[in-house]
């Protein structure tokens, strides 16, 4: 036996596939074989289908709904209208933002695509025929799609239900179409600085309306079992526990009799955070019919009605000294929330974390005001691959920096560098009140500039400009710079809740007798690979190989309560809970090991996967041995078994950051742009799985590319959605998507148990600014200061035209 060498710590560490390894994903076996279990794959005995009659117009009184022809159709079982839901008190439902929303049109419709009636039938085909036969008479009203016009004196009143309410969920309302005013920072101080400043740049920055558009649309299967009184709902829920609580509150079904299951989810990106009328109608229909009901929206429904994102008009003023030291920032945002305020933000933050808009810069004084406004557009306002309103904030400051640099006649890379929060200033409290936990912005910035050879890029750009000016080329080169600071991991219960539910998260671990384990979390993966990465966190904490740990999420009957996955909160919050639960396991394991080794607890030290007696390395107990002992030894003062649960309330948010650079070539005649280079440096703190991080960055950059270069939800003046299919709603194919270069620095979060900050949303936050700034930069020599996104062909062409670049 002597020749069997005990593996070294390093060898044993590597066998765990813990933190820092590019572990292959455990999810992929089922997905590559077509064995994923998405909501539309669920088939239950006796299941019926439901779908909506939707409003073809954006604003109208409903004079009459005639369901008789639909009901007469064989295969149609029921048609629900607001009148049917009213006795149950379910014709309206609360939104996540303190407003209420019609489940089915109650006397009027407020946006195109609004749910008017719910038809239930044998299958999709019968239901579609039924939908076509429901006759609705509309009496059309004037439409307002422009948030600035919505607050005019003669504007049509949208929400007659609350027209007279002077007080909303977030303070006073000054107009029937006004929702709230939210302020942050020092108004007087900022105004004073601006008044006295040497240089002030003043600009309106619009971040247009778009949509998360996950490849799988939203849907659910609701099954009310009348025998045992239990409601089970499978659905595309990014926050299954919150859905359970909301469902209980609005349906009066006791919460223990509701089971919410999020099966595999085909991408979320914020689209699947909200509670939609489809869920409520499917539940009611199941209660009414006594059989399971499936509702799955189609792509047009999805783009028209569930969860838009952005639509922020951000008016900014930024002041600086002549030599480029920023002295103050002012922002007034007009936020177009559509017909109902259904934004998915923590309660105290009706404009999300828009007050992270001081970005990566040390700005002494700032002021932000946001006005929320109703228009005849779909409700939503979700965080599309970002933390709450953080891409808006980041885009705003990164545009303002560029505009200021223009005004100063300064290179914007230098302006950024001059104003970054310095490493030694962390933890840093921003003028708008956030405590940035950590970062080394200068290091990242310098690394990025060097990696792309910034000086050489500017020389190439100058050469290209010469070619253009001399008539030898019709192309311009743009260099888009972006530095961003995300604020993710919502969040501390003291200031973050949704509908009163504190935004902690949880992990529960059970170690089996043979030394393998199961962990359950309050989050739910939608492609992020939680089953892979959370097992890695745990492997490093408890010394059990990641491959021996099963991860489960999404079933509210088994998983501990958590607030779900969005806003890059899984790693910062549930990841922390996982580490903390692991540490509880280890603490108990230490007691068991001490008993087994007949030493005092304090005489043991942890070594990768075992407790070793200090100074006697041959005396140890592995986690596997300890696990077995926990089930078969009667240890005085220690309960049998090895389980732990941690509910983690994060002490602070985390602040992932990064430096992105994009090089673009733009044809001024066609408006076509070609991406020549994208460099993305991310600092997400401790890196759990580099392969997955890289994949997240690629994906987020591609969504950023789409948003900045063409993706929008556009309305005409009558409130018709002009981008209702994937022909007009831009989702790039592999052909339009470039290759990306990724890089990193690693500044661990000081308050997170493993130092991780989250990464999934950073590339969207940083990417949009990089792409948009590249477009602006190309036209900078001709005097362009601001052009609104999306920078699709015709809008880019229009920039060139307005600058006189066409013959």
């Amino acid at each position, binding site marked *: 036996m002597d020749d069997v060498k005990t593996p070294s710590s390093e060898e044993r560490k590597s066998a765990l596939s813990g933190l820092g390894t590019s572990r292959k994903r455990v999810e992929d076996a089922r997905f590559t074989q077509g064995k994923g279990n998405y909501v539309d794959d669920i088939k239950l005995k006796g299941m019926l289908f439901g779908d909506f009659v939707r409003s073809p117009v954006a604003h109208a009184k409903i004079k009459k709904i005639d369901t008789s022809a639909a009901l007469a159709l064989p295969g149609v079982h029921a048609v629900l209208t607001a009148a049917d839901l009213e006795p149950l008190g379910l014709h309206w439902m609360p939104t996540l933002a303190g407003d209420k929303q019609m489940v089915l049109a109650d006397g009027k419709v407020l946006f195109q695509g609004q749910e008017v009636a719910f038809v239930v039938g044998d299958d*999709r*085909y019968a*239901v*579609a*025929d039924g939908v*076509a036969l429901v006759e609705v008479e509309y009496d059309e009203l004037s439409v307002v799609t422009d948030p600035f016009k919505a607050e005019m004196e003669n504007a049509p009143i949208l929400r007659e239900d609350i027209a007279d309410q002077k007080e909303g969920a977030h303070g006073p309302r000054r107009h029937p179409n006004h929702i709230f005013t939210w302020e942050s920072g020092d108004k007087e101080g900022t105004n004073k600085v601006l008044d006295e400043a040497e240089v002030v740049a003043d600009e309106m920055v619009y971040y247009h309306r778009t949509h998360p558009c996950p490849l799988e649309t939203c849907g659910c299967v609701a099954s009310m079992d009348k025998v045992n009184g239990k409601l089970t709902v499978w659905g595309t829920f990014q926050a299954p526990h919150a859905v359970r609580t909301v469902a209980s509150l609005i349906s009066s079904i006791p919460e223990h009799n509701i089971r919410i299951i999020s099966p595999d989810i085909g991408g979320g990106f914020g689209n699947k955070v909200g509670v939609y009328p489809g869920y409520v109608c499917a539940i009611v229909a199941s209660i009414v019919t006594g059989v399971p009901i499936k509702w799955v929206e*189609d*792509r*047009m429904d999805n783009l028209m009605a569930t969860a838009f994102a952005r639509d922020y008009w951000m008016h900014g003023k930024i002041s600086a000294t002549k030599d480029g030291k920023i002295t103050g920032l002012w922002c007034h945002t007009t936020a177009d929330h559509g017909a109902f305020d259904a934004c998915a933000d923590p309660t105290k933050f009706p404009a999300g974390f828009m007050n992270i808009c001081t970005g990566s810069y040390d700005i002494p004084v700032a002021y932000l005001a946001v006005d929320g406004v109703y228009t005849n557009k779909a409700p939503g306002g979700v965080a599309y691959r970002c933390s709450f309103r953080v891409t808006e904030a980041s885009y705003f400051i990164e545009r303002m920096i560029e505009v200021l640099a223009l005004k100063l006649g300064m290179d914007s890379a230098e302006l950024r560098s001059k104003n970054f929060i310095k490493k030694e200033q962390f933890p840093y409290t921003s003028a708008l009140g956030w405590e940035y936990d950590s970062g080394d912005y200068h290091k990242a910035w310098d690394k990025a500039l060097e990696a792309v050879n910034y000086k050489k890029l500017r020389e190439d750009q100058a050469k290209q400009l010469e070619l253009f000016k001399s008539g030898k080329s019709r192309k311009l080169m743009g260099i888009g710079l972006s530095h961003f600071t995300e604020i993710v991991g919502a969040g501390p219960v003291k200031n973050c809740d949704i509908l009163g539910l504190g935004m902690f998260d949880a992990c529960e671990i059970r170690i089996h007798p043979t030394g393998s384990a199961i962990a359950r979390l309050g989050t739910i993966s939608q492609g992020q690979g939680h089953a892979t990465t959370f097992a890695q966190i745990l492997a490093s904490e408890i010394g059990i190989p990641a491959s021996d740990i099963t991860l489960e999420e999404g079933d509210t009957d088994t998983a501990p309560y958590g607030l779900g996955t969005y806003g890059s909160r899984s790693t910062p919050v549930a990841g922390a809970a996982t580490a903390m639960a692991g540490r509880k396991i280890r603490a108990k394991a230490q007691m068991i090991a001490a008993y087994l080794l007949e030493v005092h607890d304090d005489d043991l030290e942890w070594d990768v996967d075992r407790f070793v007696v200090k100074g006697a390395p041959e005396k140890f107990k592995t986690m596997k041995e300890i696990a077995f002992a926990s089930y078969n030894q009667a240890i005085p003062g220690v309960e049998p078994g090895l389980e732990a649960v941690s509910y983690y309330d994060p002490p602070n948010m985390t602040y992932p950051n990064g430096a992105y650079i994009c090089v673009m070539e733009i044809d001024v*005649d*066609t*408006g*076509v742009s070609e991406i020549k280079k994208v460099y993305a440096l991310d600092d997400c703190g401790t890196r759990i799985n580099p392969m997955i991080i890289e994949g997240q960055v690629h994906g987020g950059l591609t969504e950023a590319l789409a948003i900045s270069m*063409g993706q929008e939800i*556009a309305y005409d003046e009558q409130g018709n959605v*002009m*981008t209702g299919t*994937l*022909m*007009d709603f*831009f989702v*790039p*194919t592999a*052909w*339009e998507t470039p290759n990306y270069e990724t890089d990193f620095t690693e500044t661990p979060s000081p308050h997170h148990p493993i130092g991780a900050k989250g990464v999934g949303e950073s590339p969207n936050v940083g990417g949009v600014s990089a792409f948009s700034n590249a477009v602006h930069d190309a036209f900078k020599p001709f005097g362009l200061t601001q052009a609104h996104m999306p920078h*699709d*062909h*015709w809008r880019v*062409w*229009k920039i060139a*035209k307005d600058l006189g670049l*066409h013959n």
Partner: protein
Amino acid sequence: MIPSAFSFYKPDNLQKAINLIADFGDEGRVIAGGHSLIPVMKQRLTDIKHLIDLSAINELKGIKIKGSSISIGAMTTQVELITNAELFKVAPVIREASLQIADPQVRNLGTIGGNVANGDPANDMPGLMQLLDATYTINGKNGVREIKAREFYEGAYFTAREDDEILVSISFNSPIGGYAYEKQKRKIGDYATAAAGVILSVDNGVCSSASIALTNLSDTPIYCSDAVSMLIGKQIDDSLLSEVTKSCVEQSDPVADQRGPVEFKKYVAGIVVNKALNRAFDRS
């Protein structure tokens, strides 16, 4: 996105198909690849009671080349147009244009007949057929007739084909000279913001024959006859090409949509025409 109900027929010869369509009148519709028709049916923008699938009719298939004369069956798919080596030899512009249509899966089922007969101004093949001066053979209960592609299109979705007629084949002569099909679009799978095809033959710098056509720049495809007259017999130089381009743009009459306003589309029309002219000239 579920169509209304219909009955389905799959005749195995042309005469049966003609009889069916004659019986059903405007309640019947033929389906080729279905990639224009099915999306419209799914949105219930059209009410079809009887659907006649042409895919089992051998008479509608195949590419026949005899010397310079080319005949293509209506049910020939875009992928067949792309991969047919003989066709590429005699009419390479067809491959160039077809590769710019839709995406690989759609090209596997999308047919030349469906694309030209539908009358959708956004489709590329009708413009290409203007360019090639193709002739459509159409068959119905009143017999066979031929219509020039340049006389076929009357308005968006309105063509010279009667409801009870079936487009059987497309014929044209092998084009002589350089060629190009230039299309600007927002992404793969999109229709043209503006597209232009050019065929040009040149002797000693003088244009001996030419053809120019535009796609999605009006409610029908456009054959640019004025521009062609300007070219023929003239020494080709940059200034002539820009005059010709101008003439083409004048003939265009696009509508605003999400691709951009009219002014932009007309400008891009000039760009794609000019590019196509230059590339065809380089290849001549």
